[in-house]
């Protein structure tokens, strides 16, 4: 079993829909959680990070963490065609030598249709 599980999709939604992306993890040592967005043929880029249970909002994006259930979510409101990308959750464990060590989920491919 992988440390981080993420539904690969693809997830296809109409423009304006609310999108829910989810990850589960098994390692209690993970302390911070990040969401990366990866456009086709590009490198991943940080979208949001959070470290505590609860919600964090940034514009149309809301990250939610439930540490007791080892479950994180990313919600996208009013989805746009420009949101079409692969979304990767990343679990962070602190390493004294290298700082933040990231363990990635497999990514969910999202397609927002006009």
């Amino acid at each position: 079993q992988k440390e981080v599980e993420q539904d690969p999709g693809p997830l296809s939604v109409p423009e304006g829909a609310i999108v829910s992306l989810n990850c589960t993890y098994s390692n209690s040592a993970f302390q911070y959680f990040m969401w990366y967005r990866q456009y086709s043929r590009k490198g991943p880029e940080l979208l949001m990070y959070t470290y505590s249970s609860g919600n964090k909002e940034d514009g149309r994006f809301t990250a939610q963490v439930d540490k007791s259930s080892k479950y994180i979510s990313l919600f996208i409101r009013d989805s746009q065609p420009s949101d079409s990308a692969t979304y990767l959750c990343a679990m962070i464990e602190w390493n004294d030598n290298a700082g933040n060590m990231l363990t990635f989920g497999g990514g969910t491919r999202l397609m927002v249709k006009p």
Partner: protein
Amino acid sequence: DARVTQTPRHKVTEMGQEVTMRCQPILGHNTVFWYRQTMMQGLELLAYFRNRAPLDDSGMPKDRFSAEMPDATLATLKIQPSEPRDSAVYFCASGPSGRFTDTQYFGPGTRLTVL
């Protein structure tokens, strides 16, 4: 706008050939990571450096892969000999290492195809 650069962006080679991928981290970042991304395995960490010193390369097939940082502005990943199963996108990422909220900044990747 500082960013991680990688060369080449695409590489097609034949099995058995040597492949060298290069990465220029963001100036001032002291940690460098190499990842491999495939459809089946997702993003896998291959190796990482801090202040140019290799800290962990347990994710790499030791017999054929090697990673080095000859200086602070250059990281290299070499495969010799290459095999078809090495076909993947290889990403380099760099980052500071002082805070929990520090993130890694990824380059555009090198898309490797081994025939």
